[in-house]
């Protein structure tokens, strides 16, 4: 696997966010503060552009007073962490068995065609990154894709058109209640 290291200017948490981070750390017993790492990484990703640069990871290591490599080890282990910049919205399409049975292959093909970019790529306008994902726990409601905190389920071509149009206009599309 090749490691592509992309740098980013060092950013820091806002005072408000830092208070949240410190409160989180304080929840753990003395000396067990490393336990806050995953959640802080999620926060950092949220605050610093949707991905974790080396600078961000080093910053998190400083906050937790641990070696930087301990952060790299964790950030590279868990697939949710992006280690390079992504589009504004990341579509992660589930393609494991249960979703495959109800047509995730079609959805992948349609998204690639519609957004004119292959899985793993980002659209030229920087709006969308397409990715495949392994089982996201929506098996009965497939085909589906995840975008941030939103699960978009029961996908059809029409529904994908709607979702894309909605994101393009800056509105997170609502999901139909089950």
């Amino acid at each position, binding site marked *: 696997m090749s490691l592509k290291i992309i740098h980013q200017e060092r950013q820091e948490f806002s005072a408000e966010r830092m208070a949240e981070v410190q409160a989180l750390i304080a929840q753990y017993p003395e000396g067990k503060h490393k336990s*806050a790492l995953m959640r802080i990484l999620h926060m950092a990703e949220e605050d610093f552009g949707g991905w974790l640069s080396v600078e961000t990871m080093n910053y998190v290591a400083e906050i937790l007073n641990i070696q930087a490599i301990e952060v790299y080890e964790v950030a590279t282990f868990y697939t949710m962490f992006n280690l390079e910049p992504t589009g504004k919205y990341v579509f992660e399409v589930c393609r494991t068995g249960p979703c495959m049975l109800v*047509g995730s292959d079609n959805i992948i093909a349609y998204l690639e065609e519609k957004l004119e970019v292959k899985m793993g790529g980002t659209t030229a306008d920087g709006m969308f990154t397409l990715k495949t994902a392994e089982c996201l*726990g929506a*098996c009965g409601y497939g085909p589906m894709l995840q975008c941030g905190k939103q699960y978009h389920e029961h996908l059809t071509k029409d529904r994908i058109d709607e979702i894309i149009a909605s994101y393009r206009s800056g509105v997170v599309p609502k999901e139909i209640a089950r």
Partner: protein
Amino acid sequence: MSRKILLEHDDVPGIETFDVYRKHGGYRSVEKALKTMSPQNVVEEVQKSGLRGRGGAGFPTGMKWSFLAKPEGVPRYLLCNADESEPGTFKDRYLMEKIPHRLIEGMIVSSYALGANTSYIYIRGEYMWILDILEKAIAEAYANGFLGKNILGSGFDLDLRVAPGGGAYICGEETALIESLEGKRGNPRLKPPFPAVKGLWGCPTVVNNVESIAAVVPIVNDGGDEYAKIGLGKSTGTKLISASGNLVRPGVYEIEMGITVEEFIYGDQYCRGIANNKKLKACIPGGSSVPILPAHLVTKTAEGTDRLMTYESLAEGGFASGSMLGSGGFIVFDEDQCIVRNTWTFARFYAHESCGQCSPCREGTGWMEKVLNRLEHGQGTLEDIDLLAEINKKIEGNTICPLGDAAAWPVAAAIRHFREEFEWHVTHPEESQKRNYGLVLPKSTLV
């Protein structure tokens, strides 16, 4: 018969809020346990109930609790495993999304039983919106005196927190979950020592699935004996089944254990049959890692008796003609689906999710994925099929954690029951490319 115990009131508007939940009998078990029962009494009720771990292994929960070491002056921890990631399983998500307070209620009573004063719900990172739901519900429970110091004046203190994962199936393995909670890579630990002796931060720890913890609520409310009356034999209680694949009505169902598989697939209360008027081809009854069953072994056992939705009946016939209830991830295949393609997606899943720590799993899962990829795409040989079976045997039982077995079993079972289909891919490379396996959308979701 459909019986709602865990999902009781899931259709009541606002049930996700404390007030509505409380109005519908919520938190009664906390009052009962903290005011009238000793922690040991609660453990005994859970033992009497015959509750078996709902995460997949089916190990008796009461027995697991009884193993917890209780050295003086050392904190104990209860961890809720909400890392639901087994393909085909989405039941815990449903419960947490709809009735978050049921899990919190179960956590309070279970923590009381185990003597844990800090407990964690470890939830898969992709379920981040459910983390928000849970944290909101937890804040309500604190505000109403069900969490925090001296709960209901009982002298029992409990802090409950939620911790997110970051995208790793392996963290559903209890020691990997503990590692992850400690802010590390999700590498499973060598056992012994077991978590009951040395778990989170080296302290005695119990890890239970969401559904198991939620089931403690009715067990305490009605008594273990009453709970044990539900179900059949050693499969007591109700079970959440996540139904997916080519069904008319996939979704999460709470069933009383003991109903027939036939009723579950075709019954009006449940999945209502195979989508698009097609025929049943196969079924994986307990999540991706359990053996697949061909149609003739789904509703009947090899002996010709009705197959039931119980731990025992689904396992009848062993791996030769049976499967497992597992996590209750019930995946159904219609006649047009390709077993090779499905097996390949599972192999890809396990290769993707292997932590890479031990060599049989790291190398073996990747190897199986590559061979299956070739077979599915018409570039396999007949020897490849035997090779797969061989690789399988070398992974199974030889790894640090059960992920190796979970990766090996579905491949072995697919070859056992659908060998001709694998061979067909070899002998008909072009047709196997053209055949539009897996691309058939059920009408309900078709554009």
